[in-house]
């Protein structure tokens, strides 16, 4: 269990606050969970790089007292790959929005998972593009309204967990901002995991997603998250899932990319391949 109520300020760049997020937004809760996980692990902030893309979630690195790289839209995992590979001693955490990770950044997401490089990808999934005013995302459910789907979304959404599993990520978890107390432990497990970790966190955007789909205010949206999800359990043949499963879907040890590369360097330096 992570500590709670501890002094997180060591991990927060307080002078950058207040943050850009709207009242009721869940991104602050997730960011706190990231800071709590770092605190629980007693990580040296000078040896951590938070890499963000573009969008609301991508702003997170500014508020963390680690190294911060706020990159281009969708490319955070590619930047993170360069950082981790060039300096493996750094802990690299990518904080991504759902559109950032899966629309414009979908290719980088798939290949980061495939390589199983030791990076933690925390995906803030609010089902919408918040920063640009509430347009549909590749995670917006069918029938839902947004600034670009006023008649209801006709595209099926991506299932982030299924994508990550299929692409080869070796730690895959999903939770929600309703389950705020579980978030830090999941993120800590993801950071500790040696390989590509994906933690999808359903989060509320009351400003656009909630308002456009009449889901109420932030607290009502948290209840909604509770109602549409269920703990990950083995279903018998006759059972039907009562909601989107949350929990740890995969936690397995497989060869990690940087370690494999370093082994290759050892061989090359010894001249085995000359």
């Amino acid at each position, binding site marked *: 269990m992570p500590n709670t109520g501890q002094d997180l300020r060591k991990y927060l760049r307080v002078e950058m606050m207040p943050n850009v997020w709207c009242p009721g937004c869940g991104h602050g809760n997730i960011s706190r969970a990231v800071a709590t996980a770092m605190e629980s692990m007693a990580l040296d902030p000078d040896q951590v790089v938070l890499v963000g893309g573009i969008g609301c979630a991508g702003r997170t690195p*500014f508020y963390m007292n680690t*190294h911060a790289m706020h990159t*281009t839209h969708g490319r955070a995992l590619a930047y993170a790959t360069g*950082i981790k590979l*060039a300096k493996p001693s750094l802990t690299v955490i990518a904080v991504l929005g759902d559109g950032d990770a899966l629309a414009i950044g979908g290719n980088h997401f798939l*290949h980061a998972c495939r390589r199983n490089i030791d990076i933690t990808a925390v995906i803030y999934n609010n089902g919408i593009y918040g920063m640009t005013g509430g347009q549909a995302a590749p995670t917006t459910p069918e029938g839902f309204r947004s600034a670009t789907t006023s008649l209801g979304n006709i595209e099926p959404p991506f299932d982030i967990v299924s994508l990550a599993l299929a692409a080869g990520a070796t730690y895959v978890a999903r939770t929600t901002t309703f389950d705020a107390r579980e978030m830090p432990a999941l993120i800590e497990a993801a950071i500790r995991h040696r390989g590509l970790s994906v933690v999808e966190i359903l989060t509320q955007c009351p400003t656009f997603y909630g308002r456009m789909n009449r889901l109420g205010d932030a607290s009502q949206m948290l209840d909604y998250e509770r109602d549409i999800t269920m703990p990950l359990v083995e279903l018998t043949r006759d059972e039907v899932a009562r909601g989107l499963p949350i929990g740890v879907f995969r936690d397995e040890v497989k060869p990690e990319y940087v370690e494999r590369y370093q082994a290759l360097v050892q061989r090359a330096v010894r001249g085995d391949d000359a």
Partner: protein
Amino acid sequence: MTHERSPHAAPRLIQGNEACALGALRAGCTFYAGYPITPASEIMETLARRLPAVGGVFIQMEDEIGALAAVIGAAWTGAKAMTATSGPGFSLMQENLGYAAMTQTPCVIVDSQRAGPSTGLPTLTSQGDVMQARWGTHGDRAALVLTASSVRDVYQMTVTAFNLSERHRLPAVLLLDATLSHMRENVVLPEVQVENRRAPASVEGFEPFAGAEFLPFGAGARIVVTGLAHQASGRPAASDGAGAERMLLHALADVETDPGVFLHRVDETDDAELVILAYGITARAARAAMRLLREEGVHAGLLELQTLWPFPESLVARLAEHTGALLVPELNLGQLVLPVRAAAAGRARVVPLNRADGVLFSPEEIARAARRVLTGREAVHA
């Protein structure tokens, strides 16, 4: 077969792309990320073989966007990092090239030009990316764009690209072309100087965007890097237009006031009634054309620009004062001729000579154009 890292005394047959890879290693490049593309792939293949043996990193990324992203990420850990590509990949890199400029990230991007647009003429040569290398990313920025005209030159200019990139904390672009990349020449690799980015005297109070000094991630000063307009501290200042303009002008002045940036070769220009202004692979034919003309008694000269951007405006302006005409052969429909014409400002006639069919100029073709210019019978191009 093993190669020495240090220059050889004895000449050996080297391909242009291989010379680029060797130059990168000599400059201290320890990180390469790329994506396969003709005619640049041998740079990547050579470094894929060579980097692991020196403890460096090679990674083949999922696309050119990711390749430059990984390079920039690696650069912020302190690595000298590069990628290489050709037109279609260079188009994809424009987004992160702008990020590298905005974040003052030293790195090197090699573009072996092939004829475009789009997939174009993948195996044929071109100089069609001159303007893209300057203006391809959105917005204004300081640019550093170099060229080479021989295999030996490719080696030297790759080192220079790293050096200037380190000195000015800018992404440096080295424009090669399909011919130079795949050409083999007998070369004695020259001795070179290697520059490294400067560390600040103290970590305390270090501001990552206050000047050329650089600290990587994990070196004691907490670094904030963003593509948003920002303060010297790195803190975003997305509404501070005046501050962003000040930082842009500072970056431009930093590179444009360094006389070491404006690399060029002048040949027989003192008494020249006509100067051929050429760069890259075309400079070879231009030099041969100049010799042909001299043998005929024509007072021809050559200015080979090795640095295209920042454009050497005062150099060209001075030349225009002392010569009658500037002939500008390019393997495109007229790109560098535009700043040449602006710099000449009517003091000398500026005559473009263009082809965009993937075929090199012959010396005779350039000499013929020069004779036409001197007899007042030149074709007028747009």
